[in-house]
């Protein structure tokens, strides 16, 4: 088992490294856009006080390239400029990829092009806001789906309307759900029960700890609800369908013949088998936990990974972007590994086959 885990981890590590390298090389091929972003935008140039000469423009571009470390060759090898006969030249270790890879091995993800802050600290700060939001929503959605699916599988009278409602909510985009919650529960024309944005207000700073916790919970209520509401239908409908299928299996009939009530059949016999596809879904939530929820972060004006990465992509802040992709990619591959391990735990047939 441990050997299997080791090999899976090694393969996942290699895949993450390859993913990050490809993203690094592809993004840094477009370094001109980052340089342009650091200087005035072409389409929005103001009428300026002095005309810069071509030499001054080139000098400014060269200075930006040097400051951002983009003046070095991109990779160990590069194609020569001879148009007639393409040639390859060796650049040695003095190249952007080597610098980045060496830094990464030492835990240095580089510095942001936009504000010069270390990428690791920016990602860490964003994660500290994102994880409580997405983590809470994921836990609540899983618990709600487990509870709801078990009751739905028992065929109560409200099974059909609830399934219809779940399918309807499943069809709604996240931004619609978020805006409906905002306009319903943070609106002076409806119910102004919750704050409209942020995690706290500047005026709250300096209040007591319990007051700050209460403020934080009030601010998190609507964003967490939006994420939870949109995650519940998929998990519930899948688990409900799997449970319904399992309850038609012979072992469930046998359990009922032994005199067990329907609830006990679901909890003690059908649930574990029905959970297998749901485990994959839960594992899929992990990268989403790390990547953040850009829609909810924008609607409720929350800081987090989603906004950080979206803004980094728009501003061509490649170090932040590559760091974010590295983190999200790692979370996805680890999620796949975790899903496999859960399968081993949940289904003895897989253990025996392997």
């Amino acid at each position, binding site marked *: 088992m441990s050997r299997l885990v080791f090999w899976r981890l090694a393969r996942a590590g290699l895949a993450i490294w390859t993913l990050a390298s490809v993203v690094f090389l592809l993004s840094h091929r477009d370094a001109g856009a980052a340089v342009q972003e650091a200087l005035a935008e072409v389409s929005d*140039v103001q*009428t300026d006080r002095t*005309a810069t000469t071509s030499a001054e423009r080139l000098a400014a571009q060269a200075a930006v390239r040097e400051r951002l470390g983009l003046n070095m060759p991109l990779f160990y090898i590069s194609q020569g400029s001879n148009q007639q006969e393409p040639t390859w030249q060796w650049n040695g270790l003095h190249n952007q990829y080597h610098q980045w890879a060496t830094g990464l091995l030492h835990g240095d993800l580089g510095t942001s092009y936009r504000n010069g802050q270390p990428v690791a600290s920016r990602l860490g700060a964003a994660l500290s806001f994102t994880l409580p939001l997405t983590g809470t929503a994921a836990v609540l959605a899983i618990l709600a789906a487990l509870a709801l699916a078990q009751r739905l599988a028992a065929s109560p009278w409200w099974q059909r309307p609830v399934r219809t409602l779940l399918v309807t909510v499943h069809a709604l985009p996240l931004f619609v759900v978020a805006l409906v919650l*905002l306009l319903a529960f943070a609106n002076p024309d409806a119910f102004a029960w919750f704050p409209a944005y942020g995690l706290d207000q500047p005026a709250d700073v300096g209040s007591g700890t319990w007051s700050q916790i209460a403020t934080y919970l009030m601010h998190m209520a609507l964003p967490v609800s939006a994420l939870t509401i949109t995650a519940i239908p998929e998990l519930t409908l899948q688990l409900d369908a799997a449970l319904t299928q399992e309850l038609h299996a012979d072992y469930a009939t046998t359990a009922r013949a032994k005199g067990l009530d329907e609830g006990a059949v679901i909890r003690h016999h059908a649930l574990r088998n029905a959970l297998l596809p749901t485990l994959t879904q839960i594992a899929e939530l992990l990268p989403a936990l790390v990547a953040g929820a850009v829609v909810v972060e924008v609607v409720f*004006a929350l800081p987090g990974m989603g906004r950080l990465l979206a803004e980094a992509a728009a501003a061509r802040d490649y170090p932040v972007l590559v760091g974010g992709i590295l983190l999200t990619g790692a979370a996805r591959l680890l999620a796949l590994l975790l899903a496999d391990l859960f399968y081993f735990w949940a289904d003895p047939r897989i253990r025996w086959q392997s």
Partner: protein
Amino acid sequence: MLQPNQAAIDANNLLHVCLLQPDIANRKYGPALATSLPAVELVGDSLSKLAYDIRPTAAWDNGRPVTARDVEFTLKLMFCPGLPNEVARNRYRFIRAVLTDLKAPQHFTLVCRGQALEYVEASGDFFILPEAAFDPRGQLRRFSLVDLQKRATTAPPDSALQSLAQRYQAAEAGHPGQVPGCGPYQLVKWEKDRYLTFRRKPQWWADRLQPVPIALQARPKQLDYVIIPDAATATLALRRGDIDVYPQIPAREFARLRASPAAAALNFYSTTSYDVVMAGFNTRRAHLNDALTRQALSRFFDAAGLLKATQLGDGQRTVGVISPIEKENYNDSLALIPFDPAGATALLRQAGWQRGPAPGTGWTRKSANGDLQQLRLAMRYRAEGSLFSTVALQFQAAAAGLDIPVTLQPTESGAFSSSLKAGDFDVYVGVRKGNPFMFNFTPVFHSLGIDAGNTTGFSSPASDQLIEAIAAADSKTHRSQLLRRFQALLQQEAPIVPLFFLPNRIVASRQLTNLHVGSLKPGFMATTIERVPKPSAAP
């Protein structure tokens, strides 16, 4: 020193003071840290000297006076290697030396390369930083400004410059509030992507001035800037009273709010900004390199309809890139370009285009070398928002009515800039930011700007001469005449089609008073705002 956005400029205006600052009400620069506008002396035909005096009361937080040494240090810092100062380098390169006077530490003279009316404003619109805080041993004094400006990137590193750059970056990276300023506010809290809180200094040097100039007024004790990306959320926050002012509010939210019962508690302001929405033609393309074709295509834009559709009637149509609110410079003798597809047909025929006999065959003409040209266009615009896509769709529909196919190319913001620079478009739609102070069009319309800011690739000896004459004009009257001629020339040559100037929309709580709004960004002055005093309870 990083490329600032408007929010950063607004925040810095609270922490720091420039020699001169624009007055949002009368759209003119006035003295801030300086006692008055600089006295200008022209030296020969290639140098200017601008003499400034710093207000005697101006002081840093530790009581030290702000001196000419601080101005000199700030300018040198803009050219210090190892700092993200590339934009500042190009912007202030025209200042070649700072002449200080040991006997009068608050008097100095800026020696500038060239002569231009704009130098009065341009020489004084940068924040002054304290030399003592960053360079207590005065190591930068051994370099002249020109030395630093001419310093090659390959020059061996200098330990003094390196340590100075490190000190500055450490202060900037830790907390921008750690960079000491002589402005009225201190940054007491900055929660990234959430809010910034500024608190007024209890003792600020400008309090001793009588009367306090509007640029130096600082009435609110605390200012909170909240970052709310979504317009619906920001509108809710305003209605709940969580925020007092909502600047740059989108047109639809503005109209919706004004029509709602909540309007009774709010004040609504709309002024014309200096940002012009315009289309540009790639004059390097063979089928767009003649003025008649461009004039014809200009008539496919329904500027009045677009203004109504996208800005709900606010904003202002224009004949050129000078705002109509600049009465002395705006050429009001020119007619607005009409939405006139029939007139466009006639102009296209004059340009040598022939419409095919069957629908769908489009327009063709033979070039001078006998090649057959087809009139079909690719229109590029930023994908975000609905403004540009509305303009593009309207143009496409109007052109389709005359059998001219237009391919729309909505493009991500960064890729859009790259495409414009590379000339990868036939027509583009965008916004050009302007101001009422600077009229040097060399980067955007001169032949020297081709392959850089001159995205349309248009230039002619006449336009180059006119642009140079505007930049070198020796009086405002003469410059106004030249600017009017320039607008006429641009309308005649039609490399661009200025459609309308965007409005600045602001909604504010009625509990506020003394809110000055204007056309300059950010559209209002935060530092003059006061709350309406609550009526005292009856005895």
